[in-house]
């Protein structure tokens, strides 16, 4: 006769009643130690102080993370290579965009700094006349500073701009340049009224100011700046998507591993850390490679450009590159990490 019992009803006092096994992890007779000869804690080396244990735990955790990342890198070398290459290309793109954008900003700054009025003086002014003129110009509203530039100085400046490729003395026998006043204005807007006023001063032959050109240039550089930012943003977004997908592929290849980790009871960060570390290492490698390409490339470019287009105000490598590399490094790092996190999120749902 089969013993049938109503579903779910268990007789009281059956079975081996709880061999008083504490639920705590380390309490009581450990079940996993049936082979151990004595139930007393056999292996318990002289307990180190708690701080040392905590430190050792942290060290162990770090060592674990690094080891896992290194292992993963060795194991899926091709995958990692793909990831590094992808990030590298993305960083190079972003780098070029940033170089372009930074130089446009620089150009705008240079042009802005040059806003001012130049008054060319009639030839043959006596020194007292000249001094009066300077004083009159200084009194005009909107004028910040007035500098007298003698024709000799002007010539020397021109020579300096042209560099030592062309010797002016060979081209012209006499100095063709007039004396001039360089008038700096308090605000860009003041250029036009100041120029008008200066033109009416006696002894001024001609007035030049970049007014309209500057207006237009500033409008253009404004647009260019916006485009530059937009470009950087777009490239950053593209980088995020690409890196996310790459990381997702590497993670997909190791889905089983993640599942097992979770089943064993690994916490979210425990599971994430090796992947994040891997992403960070790949990102760092890509950043180094990108730096290795961008630094010499830009240095050579600037050198060449200085020779061919001496008047183009390019940022010097020393001015641009440190900031650029810092941006790329943090950007690459942040994007890589967030890409990894986003890609991991799907697998950590359970």
């Amino acid at each position, binding site marked *: 006769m089969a013993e049938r019992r109503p579903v779910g009803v268990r007789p009281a006092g059956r079975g081996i*009643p709880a061999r008083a096994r504490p639920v705590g*992890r380390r309490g009581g007779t450990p079940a996993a130690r049936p082979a151990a000869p004595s139930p007393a804690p056999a292996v318990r080396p002289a307990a180190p102080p708690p701080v040392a244990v905590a430190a050792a735990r942290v060290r162990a955790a770090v060592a674990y993370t690094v080891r896992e990342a290194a292992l993963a890198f060795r194991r899926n070398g091709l995958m990692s290579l793909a990831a590094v290459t992808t990030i590298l290309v993305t960083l190079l793109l972003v780098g070029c965009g940033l170089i372009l954008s930074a130089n446009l900003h620089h150009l705008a700054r240079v042009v802005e700094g040059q806003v001012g009025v130049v008054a060319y003086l009639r030839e043959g002014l006596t020194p007292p006349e000249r001094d009066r003129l300077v004083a009159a110009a200084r009194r005009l509203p909107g004028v910040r500073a007035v500098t007298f530039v003698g024709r000799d100085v002007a010539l020397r400046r021109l020579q300096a701009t042209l560099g030592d490729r062309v010797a002016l003395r060979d081209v012209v026998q006499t100095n063709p340049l007039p004396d001039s006043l360089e008038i700096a204005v308090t605000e860009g807007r003041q250029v036009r009224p100041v120029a008008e006023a200066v033109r009416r001063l006696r002894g001024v032959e001609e007035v030049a100011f970049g007014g309209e050109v500057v207006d237009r240039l500033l409008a253009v550089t404004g647009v260019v700046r916006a485009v530059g930012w937009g470009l950087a943003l777009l490239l950053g977004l593209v980088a995020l998507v690409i890196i996310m997908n790459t990381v997702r592929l590497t993670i997909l290849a190791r889905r089983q591993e993640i599942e097992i980790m979770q089943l064993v009871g690994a916490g979210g960060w425990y599971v994430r850390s090796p992947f994040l570390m891997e992403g960070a290492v790949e990102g760092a490698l890509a950043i180094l490679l990108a730096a290795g390409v961008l630094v010499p490339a830009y240095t050579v470019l600037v050198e060449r450009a200085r020779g061919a287009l001496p008047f183009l105000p390019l940022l010097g490598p020393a001015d641009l590159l440190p900031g650029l590399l810092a941006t790329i490094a943090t950007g690459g790092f942040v994007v890589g990490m967030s890409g990894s996190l986003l890609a991991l999120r799907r697998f950590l749902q*359970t």
Partner: protein
Amino acid sequence: MIRFRGVSKRYPNGVTALRDVSLSIEPGEFVFVIGATGSGKSTLLKLIYRAEVPTQGQVIVGGRDITRLPRRHVPALRRSMGIVFQDYKLLPHKTAYENVAFALHVTGAAPHEIRPRALRALGVVGLEERADAYPHQLSGGEQQRVSIARALVHQPPLLLADEPTGNLDPRTSWEIIQLLSRINLHGTTVVVTTHNKTIVDILRKRVVELAGGTVVRDEDYGLYTPRAAVDVPHLVGGRRG
């Protein structure tokens, strides 16, 4: 230890795996959960280790209702038990030792304890000499023993085994079950789902049979098929109940 109160589980695809299951497993018990494929055995275990959440009812493990357990507490729940699977679920790129040590790592055991404890767990399952072998270098039985060592190494009060002998030959299956049974003798609660009639019939432990998502039988010292109980009891010493 474990209590199911009117538990139903319906998967999003419309399949109802469990229907109003109530069940209680006391500390120190050894329970076979049997039933045809699709009867809900695996779902029952998944509800215990919170791989699934019931659609209705309560699952209480170690005195805690885990139905509403926040996700961040799930790892702690899993560390309070050991789980053994039909397909072993060993990390393929780690050695037997590393697989076991890994589980200890996860529980946050002190570093200086990990090595001795992992080796001891491997000793319990008789695989100390194979500690440095990778899973693919081990036989199915050996792999299952590694996974049992991993499930035991943190000395959990509860061991779940989902068809642990499903992929093994009868002899190896028997060894595995004996191992689980030995572990149970040391006080660990063991819940095993299985199809293996022979093993259930020899061991005569508590048997919970599922069919169509409901418990159709729950008896102590049970047999795989209740009909067989008609003939056997008087031979082995009478039925109990």
